[in-house]
């Protein structure tokens, strides 16, 4: 690798250096202003995302640690854009709720750096590094609101759970290394699938993989490792939670996909376990969400359930499953960010938007952000013409195509259940309370988050009507995994 090749690393450099530069930036500003700092962070993230798309790497691999192909670039760009959008939400939010000045955008960039590392690593060690740099930043982002004890609780809970999942992951990694003698993803996966020329995997190695799945299961809140989600979602600042719920889960799934998508069908032992996990995740997440009155808890359970659908696609890989999973992750990220963006816009000085009953009549008093929230929820419920529908269609198609009929039926039945609780929020927005004058007063709209919300709503609807290009892109990516 020469100096000339450094431009390939530009997205990573932008994210990490940007994070480092933002941290002391406040000291040099005459009047440090959280809003400006967040927008600066968003601009850096946007630049990183664009550079990830535009700069085509000339080398496939660096130091057996990082790969540079379209797949990794895709997830790097996605993580950067999600950081950008979250920081746009945070800019208006930070004027109303104290989430610190420079540390929030700086940590978001660090987290995005960790996520891109996660998606690009070709070695289990790289995955571990990415996972940790992502999680460490997220702990602090969740606890950023020092005046709110719930925020601290949220950060602490995520920290404890994160530590446990790290322990599982590291232990699993060690066992796999002992068994297969390699830390490279390709090598250890080849051992798992019993490819030619590799030693047969022993029980020790299989146990390692199980521990690895536990570690990743925690991060993506799959049943039965989901219990942290509701409290963490409820307490954390909405922009941070939105970021956690989308970007971190999507990047961890990028790793998951490398495991299952790379080398033919996952081993029967693993796919049975994943089958049960997916079914229970969908059932539990959707049913538990039914009784929630707090919108962030509701979205927490909904997000658990949504990950179940992604897992269904993952089980149905290889074939059409990987593509369906990536498409769904993109759609999910857009709609979930849109929902959390609307929640941050609804959160004022006195507290975050909590009980959905506070939204009575808000649909007519605040039409723009309510419309964005409704579009996000309709899409999460999987109704056309939104990205969520095409995503769910792709998932059920690949599941049926791979013969997982019962899993699809469970998925459809739980999706029917989910329609009810998503609609409840829409009902409160538009159908209860009536008089717009009596609606709770929420803060005025701010431009950056309004812009981000509008863009996300348009993306959600656009992908629902013209998904062709993204579907093709995603299909071309999956041919490249590992």
């Amino acid at each position, binding site marked *: 690798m020469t100096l000339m090749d450094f431009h390939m690393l530009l997205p990573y450099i932008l994210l990490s250096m940007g994070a480092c530069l933002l941290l002391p930036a406040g000291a040099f500003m005459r009047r440090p202003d959280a809003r400006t700092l967040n927008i600066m962070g968003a601009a850096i993230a946007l630049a990183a995302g664009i550079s990830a798309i535009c700069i085509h790497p000339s080398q496939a691999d660096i130091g057996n640690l990082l790969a540079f192909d379209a797949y990794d670039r895709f997830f790097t760009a996605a993580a950067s854009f999600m950081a950008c959008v979250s920081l746009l939400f945070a800019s208006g939010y930070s004027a109303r709720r104290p989430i610190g000045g420079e540390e929030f955008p700086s940590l978001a960039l660090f987290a995005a750096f960790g996520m891109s590392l996660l998606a690009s690593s070709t070695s289990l060690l790289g995955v571990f590094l990415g996972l940790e740099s992502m999680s460490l930043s997220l702990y602090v982002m969740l606890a950023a609101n020092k005046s709110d004890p719930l925020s601290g609780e949220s950060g602490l809970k995520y920290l404890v759970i994160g530590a446990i999942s790290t322990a599982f992951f590291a232990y699993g990694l060690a066992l796999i290394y002992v068994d297969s003698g390699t830390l490279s993803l390709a090598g250890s996966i080849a051992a798992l699938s019993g490819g030619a020329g590799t030693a047969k995997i022993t029980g020790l190695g299989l146990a390692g993989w199980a521990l690895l799945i536990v570690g990743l299961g925690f991060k993506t809140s799959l049943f039965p490792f989901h219990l942290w989600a509701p409290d963490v979602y409820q307490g954390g600042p909405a922009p941070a939670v939105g970021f956690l719920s989308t970007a971190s889960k999507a990047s961890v799934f990028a790793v998951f996909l490398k495991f299952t998508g790379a080398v033919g069908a996952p081993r029967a032992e693993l796919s049975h376990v994943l089958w049960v996990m997916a079914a229970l995740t969908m059932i539990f997440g959707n049913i538990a969400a039914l009784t929630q009155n707090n919108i962030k808890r509701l979205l927490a359970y909904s997000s658990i359930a949504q990950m179940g659908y992604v897992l269904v696609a993952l089980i149905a890989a290889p074939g059409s499953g990987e593509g369906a999973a990536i498409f769904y992750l993109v759609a999910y990220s857009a709609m979930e960010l849109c929902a959390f963006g609307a929640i941050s816009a609804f959160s004022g000085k006195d507290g975050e938007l909590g009980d959905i009953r506070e939204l009575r009549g808000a649909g007519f008093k605040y039409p723009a952000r309510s419309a964005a929230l409704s579009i996000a929820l309709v899409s999460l419920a999987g*109704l056309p013409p939104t990205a969520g529908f095409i995503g769910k269609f792709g998932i059920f198609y690949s599941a*049926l195509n791979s013969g997982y009929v019962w899993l699809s039926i469970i998925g459809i039945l739980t*999706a*029917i259940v989910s329609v009810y609780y998503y609609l409840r929020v829409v009902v409160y927005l538009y159908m209860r309370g009536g008089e717009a004058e009596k609606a709770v007063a929420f803060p005025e709209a701010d431009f950056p988050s309004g812009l981000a919300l509008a863009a996300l709503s348009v993306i959600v609807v656009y992908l629902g009507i013209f998904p062709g290009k993204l579907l093709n892109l995603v299909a071309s990516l999956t041919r490249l995994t590992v």
Partner: protein
Amino acid sequence: MNGTLTFLIFLPALSALLLLLEKNPKTVRLFALFITSCELAISLLVYWLCWRGIFSGRTLIKLDYPWIARFGIHYALAMDGVSLLLVTLTALLFALCVLVSWRQVNERVSLFHAMLLFLETGIMGVFLSADLFLFYLFWEAMLIPMFFLIGVFGHGRRVYSAVKFFVFTITGSLLMLLSIIGVYIIHGRETGVYSFMLRDLAHTQVSPVVSGVLFIGFLLGFAVKVPLFPLHTWLPDAHTDAPTAGSVILAGVLLKTGAYGILRVAFPLFPRAAAAFLPLIFTISVTGIFYAAWIAFAQKDMKRLIAYSSVSHLAYVVLGIAVWNDVSIAGSVLQMVNHGITTGALFIMVGMMDERMHTRDISAYGGLWSKAPAMSAFFLFFILSSLGLPGLNNFTGEFLILTGLFRAHPWLCAAGFAGMVTTLIYLLSLAQKILFGPPKEYRGFTDLSGRELAVLIPLAFLVVFIGVYPSALLRVLDTPVRDMVSAVSINPVGGIMP
């Protein structure tokens, strides 16, 4: 001409987006009226061209573009005589709905009309799709506008009814989605061509058990919408609590999408499974005719009564389709149009009474004829039409259905006639209670206004016109229905179970 169908479908939705930005109620109403009239004018124009023989053949207009290439999904639309009739009915009722809501909806006027227009796009799309995926997309796109129309603009337990409507229909349609994907995959594996085009899928060879399962998925999705007994329980609530325009659209066209789906999708795709399930379909249809009539007789609320009468009437339509011969299918399609006109008119009239008296309770009325003769005359006229008086529209449709039925199943035909007698009982008793007897107190009750007459006269004209000259509609139906019957044979001799 290729753009016509696209224009017909998306003009309302695009105008709805514009409407959302407009605040002045009067402008909104006029604009919505203009758009819905445009729709009506276009469909009438196509009808006229078809009548003059300028359009002919099985498919009058069609277009086909690849849309989502990855899944072989096409943006394919087709219009034949059946869809033409239903599209014209839709356009007519929507234009009337804007007129009907002129005085009734005074708050959030732009949202109301925007939802109405979005709904029109969805319904038009369902009637014109030639691709199953596109069909499903429009099918579901109808839900949200209707949900808003009931939930925001309804009365009584509007939220409960709106959610009930939504959850019932989404349950049916999501199960249908699995069947759609299933038949798509089976067809793709068999032929190597992955396509959602209805004409491709119709030739799929499926094993009896699998086709039975897939057919059940489709049947559930459509039966909830029709609605067939015992899946009808959402309908009375939705009708009762919806605003007048919502009820008119719901009864007038939304229910027809279910019957249309059975006719266009479920039976042609799975003829063998359909044949196997015929006894079930006959049983629930006939049960529905009697059960709904019986329940209708006990209703105190006029809208609820008419809602149950819809359940009963639509069961005839399904019977006609299920028999699957050219006479009965033509009768069914004709009856869909008739029911839309007559029941639409009845709901409009109940809305007018409700506007004046603020109640739909039958016992609050009585002797209306002495107070408002013109209104009473129209009401009686539409009731007579609904119960199938010869010379009026419903008679022709029912007659054709029962004739077709008689050929294949004489005893079913007998049951159908008995059902018509029950219809007579509850509808005549409704007319008697409201129009005749000692007059109740009607303070400030005025007879029909000019705008209201403008709504009712075209409907009344159609009732008579179709009654005495049904060939005007049947001529358009003839070719497509014959083609449909000859393309697929539903042969009940094939066995009791798949």
